[in-house]
């Protein structure tokens, strides 16, 4: 084991799968350029050649259909988008073609394709470079939606996604790219559709997605000093959703906060809240609470951007409300900020 970053883990997963299986290829706008999708594709074109790692015209919809066509004919494409917002241009292919192609061929045509997309804030990205919208994909039967938080999960889940015979949307938060952890150098898989307990606790269950797990850890660290113990569940895959661990946890704690990295209305947090209400009704001591984006487009200017995004403070305040605790003094706490990292352009 050695420590590598989330970004390196993504790159290593693709590298090892391309080495293992000549049918795997990687493509997308800017994929082989000198920046390599925030570094995650650097070196692939040099190692595997332009045939297996290539740039494309600015044609998100067609290049998604292109991936589908290649997949049904036996290739294993990985299509990469530097912002998830651009995937909205490919919604016709994703929702009308990719999701239903296997079903429409009575299972005769397999669709082993991965669509990687980066979500999350950077440095004043504004309202067209900052969306999450993963629940939009998760809403459509036929698409799997995976969003790892840790470097180990990034590697293991990406390898699983590449080996999966079904279309997988793979969602990566920009801020997670720098997270480091011990990750095996060998190829390994983590099953798609299995949640994980990231932190054991006994008082309140936090179901957190993607970057919000990092915020939940920060909240847990602060609340520990007040003897409040948070249990953090990372679903890792939101479609298909494995709710077993979260249900088990809420049955134990009686409290549930969904800390999501997206808008609340009709979002993934609403799905979790519904499932917890259905499956833990008698055990709940307080209504499920949800934390997510402000119900507005994401503004560019920093103070409003900070207001738009949820963080550890929102989680701490929600815990206090549920447990009827006095507000914790947070004036001396330092919360995550990437001011030092981001000096522009992104």
């Amino acid at each position, binding site marked *: 084991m050695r420590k590598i970053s989330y970004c390196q883990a993504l790159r290593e997963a693709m590298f090892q799968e391309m080495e293992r299986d000549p049918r795997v*290829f990687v493509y997308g706008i800017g994929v082989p350029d000198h920046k390599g999708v925030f570094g995650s594709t650097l070196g692939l074109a040099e190692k595997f050649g332009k*045939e297996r790692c290539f740039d*494309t*015209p600015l*044609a998100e*919809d*067609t*290049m*998604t*259909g*292109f*991936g*589908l*066509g*290649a*997949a*049904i*004919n*036996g*290739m294993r*494409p990985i299509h990469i988008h530097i912002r998830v917002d651009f995937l909205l241009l490919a919604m*016709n*292919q994703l929702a*009308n*073609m990719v999701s239903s*192609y*296997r*079903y*429409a*061929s*009575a*299972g*005769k*045509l*397999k669709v082993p394709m991965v669509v990687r997309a980066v979500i999350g804030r950077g440095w004043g990205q504004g309202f067209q470079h900052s969306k999450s919208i993963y629940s939009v994909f998760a809403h459509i*039967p*036929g698409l*799997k939606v995976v969003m790892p938080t840790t470097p180990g999960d990034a590697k293991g889940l990406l390898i699983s996604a590449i080996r999966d*015979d*079904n279309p997988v949307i793979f969602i990566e938060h920009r801020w997670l790219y720098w997270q480091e952890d011990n990750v095996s150098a060998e190829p390994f898989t983590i099953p798609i559709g299995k949640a994980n307990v990231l932190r054991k606790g006994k008082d309140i269950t936090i179901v957190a997605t993607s970057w919000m797990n990092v915020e939940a850890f920060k909240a847990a660290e602060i609340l520990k000093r007040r003897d409040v113990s948070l249990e953090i569940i990372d679903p890792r895959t939101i479609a298909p959703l494995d709710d077993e661990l979260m249900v088990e946890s809420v049955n134990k704690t009686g409290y549930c906060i969904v800390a999501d990295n997206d808008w609340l209305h009709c979002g993934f947090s609403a799905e979790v809240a519904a499932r917890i209400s259905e499956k833990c009704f008698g055990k709940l001591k307080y209504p499920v609470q949800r934390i997510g984006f402000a119900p507005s487009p994401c503004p560019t200017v920093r103070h409003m951007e900070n207001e738009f995004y949820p963080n550890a403070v929102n989680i701490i305040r929600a815990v206090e409300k549920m447990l009827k605790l006095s507000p914790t003094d947070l004036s001396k706490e330092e919360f995550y900020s990437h001011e030092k990292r981001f000096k522009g352009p992104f």
Partner: protein
Amino acid sequence: MNSLNIELYKKLYLIRRAEEKIIECYNEDEMKTPMHMSMGEEAIAVGVCHALKKEDQVFGTYRSHAIFLAKTEDSDNFFAEMYGKATSPLKGKGGSMHLCAPNFGFMGTSAIVGSAISVAVGAAFANKRLKNGKIVAVFFGDGAVEEGAFWESLNVACLMKIPILFVCEDNGFAVHTPVHCRQGYKSITDIVFKFNCNVLKEESTDVEIIYDLSCRAIELIKSTQLPCFLHLKYYRYLEHVGINKDFDAGYRSEDEFNKWHKIDPIKLQRNKLIKEGYEEDEIRKMESRIDIQIKEAITKAKKAPFADKGELYKGLFG
């Protein structure tokens, strides 16, 4: 006597009779699927598909009865799917608009105009990469060339030198809207010609001419390693969706239909066979064999059971 012309005629006749039987039976209300009929375009479907090998691949649209039968000649599965029965490989999940038979190289269709074009380009890319020699033909109408997906796909295919046959079946209408209300240019072929692409066009309803042109298109694709855009005119005999004529609707005239009907592709090919010396009796016998084949396909489809409703949940992932 030319055995090619008899083969072409058999396919034309199969398609025409299958659709005539649909018209005959549709009002029984047992085929509960919106029919987008192929009548009028049979020469294109047969001409192109006959030029393809069995292992070559075809993608279509919601109007794919003709190309499905031309590529597969599988009237049993065709009618089983029209009736939505368990004996169809798709078990009724697709219906008239979503025919699919990958074992015959019929790779699927889209009812979203233009959407299958991108998929076909990717499929052709895979064939090129896998060096399996398979040719992909994708069929679409004149409405599809107004979609972004068409231009994106054309650009990608020309840029990446992908061996694909684009078949534009131009009937002059998108549903009921004539071409002059939709296109801000004079000639689609002139524009496509500016791309790094082979371009061929034809207005004939003679299946032999379209077959020859398709063979030439395939040779061009192979020799230039570039796509070919094949622009073919035809006239849609029936309404956009449904089994009726709609000349009373006012958007097109029966005179125009009559003009095209004089050169109906089935009639034309039959007359050619007579001229070539086939006996009327001989042709009738062959036709009656196809009539029986279709009749039996319908009888079998009607008798067959529906799939268990649990089938709904099957085949999404695997």
